[in-house]
């Protein structure tokens, strides 16, 4: 608990807000699970055992203490698959954000910094990108080329750069006209140096906020695609895929879809809480 006392009656924001800390704890836990998944899983997440199919989780009558969250329809330990699934979600969320960030920030900064014709082209690219139905196109690409993690990351990365571009464009447009940029020009700095040393560091906080929210979006989209059977290939335990595989049993044992769904919901909520908190902490209220 924070010992700081709110001085004014206004809402507590940024690091003073409980939401930010809850988000940070959730994200920290998820990162820990993702990195150390092979060390902390209680069972092998891929080993099937048809003798212990659909064991119930700990809060239900007749559970097996060895399998805290029960087992799935093929007898694989649900907790281990959940932890492994966290690794997959975080891996995809972060890598997709890196790919889309590189594309979006490059495009956005170029448009915002240079303006004119270049900016027209950038705006056009953003408009076109927004008109493309993301889920459908991602499904089509994966459906045509086959399911693989690399392909999934590249496809989502190529589709999700719009928010990066919008924010990078508008913020670098503001920074462009500030005095310290003019000073750098006068000092004879090259375009590249002005961009990389003066502009980028000053819009970085905005971009960090966007990146956080993009990780959440990418994780949700990955789960959706995996749920539709065109995301992470089985037997990898993506949370979306776990829900899809358990769907046939959900009317008899609802917990099979509740567990991975709650995990997905909590992780995305946590990342969004952290992102909103960071935005307030950085004082970057410009909404995207």
């Amino acid at each position, binding site marked *: 608990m924070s010992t700081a006392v709110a001085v004014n009656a206004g809402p507590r924001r940024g690091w003073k807000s409980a939401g930010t800390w809850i988000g940070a704890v959730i994200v920290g836990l998820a990162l820990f699970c993702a990195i150390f998944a092979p060390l902390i899983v209680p069972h092998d997440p891929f080993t099937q055992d048809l003798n212990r199919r659909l064991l119930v989780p700990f809060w239900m009558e007749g559970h097996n203490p060895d399998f805290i969250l029960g087992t799935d329809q093929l007898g694989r330990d649900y907790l281990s698959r959940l932890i492994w699934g966290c690794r997959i979600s975080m891996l995809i969320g972060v890598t997709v954000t890196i790919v889309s960030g590189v594309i979006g920030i490059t495009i956005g900064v170029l448009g915002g910094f240079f303006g004119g014709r270049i900016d027209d082209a950038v705006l056009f690219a953003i408009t076109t990108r927004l008109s493309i139905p993301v889920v459908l196109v991602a499904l089509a690409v994966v459906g045509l080329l086959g399911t693989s993690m690399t392909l999934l990351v590249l496809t989502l990365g190529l589709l999700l750069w719009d928010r990066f571009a919008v924010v990078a464009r508008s913020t670098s447009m503001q920074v462009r006209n500030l005095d310290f940029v003019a000073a750098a020009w006068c000092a004879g700095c090259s375009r590249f140096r002005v961009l990389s040393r003066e502009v980028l560091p000053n819009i970085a906080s905005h971009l960090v906020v966007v990146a956080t929210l993009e990780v959440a979006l990418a994780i949700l989209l990955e789960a959706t695609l995996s749920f*539709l059977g065109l995301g992470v290939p089985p037997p990898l335990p993506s949370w979306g895929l776990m*829900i899809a595989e358990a769907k046939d049993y959900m009317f008899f044992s609802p917990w099979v879809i509740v567990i991975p769904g709650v995990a997905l919901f909590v992780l995305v909520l946590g990342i969004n809480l952290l992102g909103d908190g960071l935005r307030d902490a950085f004082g970057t209220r410009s909404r995207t």
Partner: protein
Amino acid sequence: MFRFLVRRLIVALLVAATVMTLAFILTRLSGDLAISIAGPNATAADIEAVRKAYGLDRPVLEQFLDWVGRAVTGDLGNSYFFQTRVSTLIAERMPVTLTLGLTGLSLALLISIPMGILAAVRENTNFDRAVQMVALIGQAMPSFWLGLLLMIVFGLSLGWLPISGTGSWEHFVMPGIVLAFSAVPALTRLTRAGMIQAMASDYIRTARAKGLSRASILLKHALRNAAIPVVAIAAVQLGFMLGGSIVIEQVFALHGVGFLAWESIAKNDFPVVQAVVLVLAVIYVALTMVSDLLNAVLDPRLRA
């Protein structure tokens, strides 16, 4: 105003042309279409026959120009699987997707506008924080999972609503709620922000000074201004919803355009896939134009 419209129209056409090109490239990504269409047991002669029959033996550029030429006149080609015209297929399925999209949007507006107004009026109270929490929850909720949960609760446990199909209006309640969920966060936040800004403005102070009732100030004066961006964004949200309905149509087995696309991807039915991408993109572009127009009509300041 006229110049503005013409400019928007030109950009819209350019976007449509770009999406058309991308949709065409998308379906050629897998390499040789004839091999995928002919199936795994096809002989070399079969593949050759398929290639001839579908005109895949022509140069790619010729195929592209042919497709563009036909699409402009409304002919989107023939489906490999259904053996009928793609435009007919899409026209048959469109009512389901549109019904779903409009249901979702209406529900979303019905929920988010009152919530946004109340949150703005009681800014920084617990109610306001609760509304913002609801928006955060809506943002984090995976739509397919929410759909399944609703099916378990309202379809199975309570037995109030049918689980899948398109027979009656009741079939659209659960999918509509799920779809609405995705739009509620953005619309609520926008209404709230708009109302807070409007309530702080001079003309509201004037209205207060004149002694108008609170309801009249809120609904007649403030809401009218706060609603402008909300209405405009609602049109854009409808576009996103139509594109995103593919997941919900699949969960609830609603045979709309999204379901058609999903089936066609599974069956390598490329003409249908590229046509659906194009149609959804064109609808989205049209809706953003509607949104700009609404903005201009509702806000005289933008008409200059």
